[in-house]
């Protein structure tokens, strides 16, 4: 394609964008909204996944001991745990230490513990670390079999809940995204239809003087792509701002929550959204051209 022709296409596309002012704005907003929601769900799902797998790799097994064990017996349990395959570190936490930590975690609310008086309801425990995440579960099961062990817990429930949550969010997101993408497609094809209608005379003349179908279609295709692209850019800007704000807030209050760092994560999401927006735009105008311009 000649440079001059490309220039012509782009000029024509922009002139009809101006011409359809309100419809153009409506299309761009719809695309922006759809992609914003798509982006939000994408970021949410990816973060939940990230959280789940981070927690999974970090988990340690808490081994709670029966209450009436002698020091000798406790040491024996400790030795046996060390021999379980995959175990790399075993730390003993006695009841007093456990209580002290608990108090610390409660922070300002540690007054609640006053009701306990002098009794300490917490058991003696071992904290066990393993070398690979997939060994957590078998190791925990092996520990639970040992004599003197009350039970052995690891973050399984939380992780499984996280995965369930991810699945749900993904499903809801998918449904919403499909719906919104269709809405965006619809409104863009409508905008292009209006352009085609406004220019039917011009299109007729173009056909009589021998313009090819491709030549006639290009400006409309470009118009659709500009609509989709602009919507995507707006969505991306909003998402980046929102994510920056949110991660800032979360890091201040919940230090331990493992979020995906902004870059390059957001760069990938942005590229994806911009491509998606442009494709929706091109598709929308193709639909309109097929239906309303018999060329």
């Amino acid at each position, binding site marked *: 394609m000649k440079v*001059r022709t490309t220039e012509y296409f782009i000029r024509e596309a922009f002139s009809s964008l101006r011409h359809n002012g309100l419809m153009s704005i409506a299309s761009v907003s719809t695309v922006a909204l759809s992609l914003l929601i798509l982006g939000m769900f994408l970021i949410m799902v990816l973060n939940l996944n990230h959280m789940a797998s981070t927690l999974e790799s970090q988990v340690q097994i808490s081994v709670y001991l029966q209450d009436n064990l002698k020091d000798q017996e406790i040491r024996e349990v400790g030795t046996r745990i060390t021999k379980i395959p995959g175990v790399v570190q075993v730390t003993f936490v006695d009841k007093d230490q456990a209580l002290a930590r608990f108090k610390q975690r409660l922070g300002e609310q540690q007054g609640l513990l006053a009701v306990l008086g002098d009794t300490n309801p917490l058991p003696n425990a071992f904290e066990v670390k393993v070398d690979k995440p997939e060994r957590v579960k078998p190791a925990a099961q092996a520990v639970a079999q040992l004599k003197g062990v009350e039970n052995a817990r690891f973050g399984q429930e939380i992780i499984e809940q996280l995965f369930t949550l991810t699945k749900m969010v993904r499903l809801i997101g998918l449904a919403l995204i499909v719906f919104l993408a269709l809405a965006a497609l619809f409104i863009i094809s409508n905008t292009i239809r209006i352009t085609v209608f406004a220019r039917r*005379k*011009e299109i007729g*003349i173009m*056909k*009589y*003087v*021998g313009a090819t*179908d491709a030549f006639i279609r290009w400006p409309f295709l470009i118009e659709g792509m500009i609509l989709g692209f602009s919507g995507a850019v707006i969505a991306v800007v909003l998402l980046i701002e929102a994510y920056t704000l949110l991660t800032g807030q979360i890091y201040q209050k919940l230090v331990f929550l493992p979020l995906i760092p902004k870059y390059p994560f957001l760069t990938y999401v942005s590229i994806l959204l911009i491509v998606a927006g442009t494709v929706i735009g091109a598709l929308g105008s193709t639909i309109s051209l097929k239906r309303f311009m018999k060329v």
Partner: protein
Amino acid sequence: MIHMAGVSKIYSNGSVALSDISVAIDKGDFVFIVGPSGAGKSTFIKLLFREELPTSGELYVNGRNVAELEPSEVPYLRRGLGIVFQDFRLLPNKTVYENVAFAMEVIESPRREIQKRVHHVLDLVGLRHKARNYPGHLSGGEQQRVAIARAIVNNPTVVIADEPTGNLDPDTSWEIMKIFERINKAGTTMVMATHDKMVVDGMKRRVIAIEQGRIARDQEGGQYGYES
């Protein structure tokens, strides 16, 4: 140049517009297509630039088999034709110059050639001084001259005109015919459907009369032959 053999056109609603038309129009001919309203003149014209497809028969225009032309080849057929309509079909938001240049732009002619050709054809129709005007500020005759300039700017071998003087007064019609005559003298074939008795009788050219979808008369230096 134009060759029809046994061409019929039946519209999808069953009405027979043309039946068994055979005609040959040679390079450089000047032909009037006349006949009562609804006799098939318009259909005849539309077949030539493949606005309509013949239902049966052979049709060649500029060496192309129009009846079996791929849709993708239609633009190339039309680049060899210049088409003029009764209602001018100019773009109101483009100047005279831009309207004419448009026909070259959409077939991707080089810019320098566009400038040269557009000025040349505007000279030919006597409107170079109105190049910057908009169609809304021109008289009907001037608008039709712009349309003619647009039709010939790509150097077509055939100019097809459908009632080009239908909206114009007699003096203006005559001016338009003089322009067509000049174009024809330069070697371009002219095919014109018309109702205009004065024009046909005055020009003394080949006349093909179509009545009820058939050729009723085909004579050189013919007359209009109907009450106007």
